[in-house]
């Protein structure tokens, strides 16, 4: 859809350090994760271990292969961090408003 492309063009480029592999369909092996990405298995393994250390992904055995999946709860928390900081700014902006719009705002 063209509107989607337009919106994407306005977004800053995605940052690589926190890039999350596509687990939308559930747990995946490293082989599957590397398919069609042009990224080496080694690089993907390294990313998965880094994400695993902070609890954002976890792995399990499925038959003979190891599969990786997102820890969605943890990921959600990382996102909520931004929401909380945004709420702090809302709050600070309202205190600033009280301060500049109302003489009583200067009391303390």
């Amino acid at each position, binding site marked *: 859809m063209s509107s989607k492309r337009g*919106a*994407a063009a306005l*977004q*800053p480029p995605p*940052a690589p*350090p*926190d890039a999350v592999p596509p687990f*939308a*369909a*559930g747990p995946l092996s490293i082989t599957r994760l590397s398919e069609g990405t042009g990224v080496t298995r080694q690089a993907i393994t390294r990313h998965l271990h880094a994400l695993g250390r*902070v*609890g*954002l992904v976890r792995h399990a055995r499925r038959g003979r292969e190891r599969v990786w999946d997102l820890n969605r709860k*943890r990921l959600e*928390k*990382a*996102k*909520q*961090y*931004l929401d*909380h*900081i*945004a*709420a*702090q*700014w*809302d*709050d*600070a*902006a*309202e*205190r*600033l*408003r*009280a*301060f*500049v*719009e109302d003489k009583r*705002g*200067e009391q*303390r």
Partner: protein
Amino acid sequence: MAVNTPAPNDTVSTDRIEKRVVLRASRTRVWRALTNAAEFGTWFRVKLEGAFAAGRPIRGRMAIPGYEHVTLELLVERIDPERYFAYRWHPYAVAPGVDYSAEPTTLVEFTLEDTEGGTALTIVESGFDRIPLTRRAEAFRMNDNGWTGQIKHLAKYVE
């Protein structure tokens, strides 16, 4: 099952927060509230020592109940009179006993424009993608216990 449909949030930047407010005050008035360290401290609730100067750090203790143990340090990036003010800091650096100094900072930018009825202020904080995820998760855990209550507390001051 719509497993492959990304949530709307997926297209939202995780790197920056942007707020725009219109204040019923002159640009000069808002500028002073932002860049006079004592005035900034009044509404932001921090007791800053000294004045803002480009390229210089400024420190101060938070004056929010429950956060008095926190010393804020801002590194002023740029001051363009009555138009643009920017500093760097460590976002939500409130964990007692943690040295954040080696960690990445975020950039906070205030931009002022004249608008009908007052001054449009845009606040942008960016650089969150460089903040370690562990730190974000920790901050959230602290938020769970502290911040929700603080917001309610603060609301009383503003009213």
